[in-house]
């Protein structure tokens, strides 16, 4: 029966090894816990750079990500160095992808992310801070979540307030209408924050123009074809009463223009938002009166750059003032007068940005209403 005895002995040793190993492991975890999150390392020499976003079908996100690619190219790497985490509009997938990448890179990660919705920002930021990674967010976060509460690991948050710029374009529109008549608004997806802000901008401007009536505001879901159908329905309902159109973004304006073209209506005052290349051309041609450029290319690049440079230790986020941690992105107005100049500067040659000028084009600290 010696083989049984041998087996039992062997198992004893195995079991002791296992216990010892476990104890050692627990001690390690405890030691790491003592140091606390974010203290594990001061700098990461060569972090993985990742952008987590909805998808590339949308021209806006396409621009954002092209900025991220331009940034990694400025590091002397190829475009493929940028890791893409595509959430397809799912917050669960967004968080799961981030966690997977954190374990794969062992926390050596510089992450730029739009967390898809505001509540998802907290778990994402906490996961990154716990793993010692560096994260910069764009657009979505709740008002009670602040970068300075996470030491260096939550590097920055950038967003845009669209109410002011939308109000200014609305004023351009209302002036062009001669301060009277009827205006219709075609909005984005009704629950989207920018859609709400852009409609509010129009309403704010209307206060000063009592002779202009807001005939109707309907969601067109940021979609050209939907906008086309909504505009033709507006034409049925209001006909000649419509003397101006306020569009929540450029893709909506394209649909509106085609609906007007189908009816042979020319010279209708229209304003839009986003400053897509095609819209800039339409502004130059006088078919759109004004649009607002938010420079998504720069926004996408600088968000990745902030996370990267914080990760490598090039700057220490916790030593920066609040307006460098939470800030508004740039807004540039484009009207027929400056459309040609804008086109030459921003579209025909995409400017080479200095990706270490983190806050140059930004627009002040985020205010909470």
């Amino acid at each position: 029966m010696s083989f049984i005895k041998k087996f039992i002995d062997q198992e004893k040793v195995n079991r002791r090894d296992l216990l010892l190993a476990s104890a050692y492991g627990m001690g390690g975890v405890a030691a790491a816990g003592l140091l606390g999150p974010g203290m594990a390392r001061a700098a990461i020499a060569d972090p993985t750079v990742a952008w987590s976003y909805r998808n590339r079908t949308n021209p806006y996100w396409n621009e954002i990500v092209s900025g991220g690619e331009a940034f990694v190219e400025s590091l002397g790497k190829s475009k493929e160095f940028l890791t893409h985490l595509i959430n397809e509009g799912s917050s669960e997938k967004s968080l799961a992808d981030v966690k997977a990448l954190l374990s794969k890179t062992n926390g050596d990660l510089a992450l730029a992310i739009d967390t898809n919705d505001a509540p998802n920002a907290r778990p994402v930021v906490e996961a990154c801070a716990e793993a010692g990674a560096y994260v910069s967010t764009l657009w979505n976060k709740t008002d009670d979540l602040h970068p300075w509460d996470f030491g260096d690991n939550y590097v920055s948050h950038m967003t845009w307030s669209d109410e002011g710029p939308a109000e200014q374009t609305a004023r351009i529109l209302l002036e062009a209408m001669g301060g009277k008549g009827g205006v219709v608004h075609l909005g984005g997806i009704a629950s989207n924050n920018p859609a709400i802000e852009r409609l509010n901008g129009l309403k704010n401007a209307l206060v000063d123009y009592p002779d202009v009536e807001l005939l109707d505001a309907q969601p067109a879901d940021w979609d050209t074809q939907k906008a086309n159908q909504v505009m033709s329905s507006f034409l049925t309902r209001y006909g000649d009463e419509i003397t101006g159109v306020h569009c929540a973004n450029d893709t909506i304006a394209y649909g509106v223009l085609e609906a007007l073209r189908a009816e042979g209506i020319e010279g209708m005052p229209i304003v839009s938002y986003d400053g897509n290349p095609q819209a800039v051309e339409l502004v130059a041609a006088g078919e759109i009166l004004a649009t607002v450029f938010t420079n998504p290319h720069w926004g996408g690049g600088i968000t990745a750059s902030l996370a990267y440079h914080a990760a490598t230790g090039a700057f220490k986020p916790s030593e920066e003032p609040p307006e460098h941690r939470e800030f508004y992105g740039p807004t540039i107005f484009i009207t027929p007068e400056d459309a040609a100049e804008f086109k030459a500067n921003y579209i025909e040659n995409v400017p080479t940005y200095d990706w270490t000028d983190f806050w140059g084009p930004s627009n002040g600290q985020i205010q909470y209403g």
Partner: protein
Amino acid sequence: MDAATYVGTQRRKFLSRERVVKWAPLLVLIVLVLLFPLFEWLEDARAGDDHVYLLDSRFFSIRNAARIFISAAPALMVAIGVTFIIIMGSIDLSMEGTVSVCAVVFAFAFIAWGGTLLSWAWLALPVAVLVGAFMGFVNGLVHIKLKIPSFMASLAMGFVGTGLALLLTGGDRIRVEDPIFRSLLTERWFNFPVMCYVAFVFLLIAWFIQSRTTLGRNFYAVGGGEELAHASGLNVERVRLMGFTLAGAFFAVGALLAVGRIGIAETATGNNFMFVSITAVVVGGTALWGGIGGVWNTLVGVLIVNVINNGMVVIGLPGWVQDGTLGLLVIAAVVLSTDRKSVSFVK
């Protein structure tokens, strides 16, 4: 059987299930067309304005009919394509991807070959249809040869299509500005743009295929009872493959009209076509398990969906009411067209 019972059966026969199912969609369409002007009339009556019902209606006018037909034309083409598949008892969810790819390929080819219909660029039109047919063919092959349910195979192929369109455009939008091509929208005959007539011609072609060709009859045979059709010596796989190819070609025509309508081809060109076309087919009275319905049902269904979309805005109701109403209509349509006594379980 005494006389009274006999008369009763006869009366029940007049309003038989088949008849109700056959004419209900058209009835719904007519009711909707008369209902929206009623709301307008009520609104003006409340404001104290003169308003003769229908005559003064903005909704019930030729100009608005043209607007509804413009928005319906591309969706009609896509819905006709999927009608053939649904008659067979399968489903095709690849339309969004296929429409995007066809639109983008068309736009690239059109611009590369001259950019106006008067040059060789007209070849881009048949090329786009061939691309659509090819995508449908591949879709059918995946479904038949790999024995994947059509629902899953086509959904996956749709994603492949969207990805392919994105790869081709890199996220950009391509403008097609040739005035001759755009005359699809801008040129009007008898108050209606050319694209409405083009859509009508393709509707007639689809009707011809459905009712006057062996292929069309075979669709019904497969949908009505696949085992039986197979036992009768019909090559069911071949019929399915041709059905998916044909659907792809119609998706491509839808893509061309969609590009003609807004002058832009992009990855998002295919957006929303899945919801609109499937809703239209079902609301039109084509049964999801196959064998019943046809392209005229689909025409009525597409018009119902577009009349609702247009009418809701015209009477000033918010967007979410539109979606909700369409959802309820789909349920009502399925309830109407389903003989629930004969369905023992639902999965």
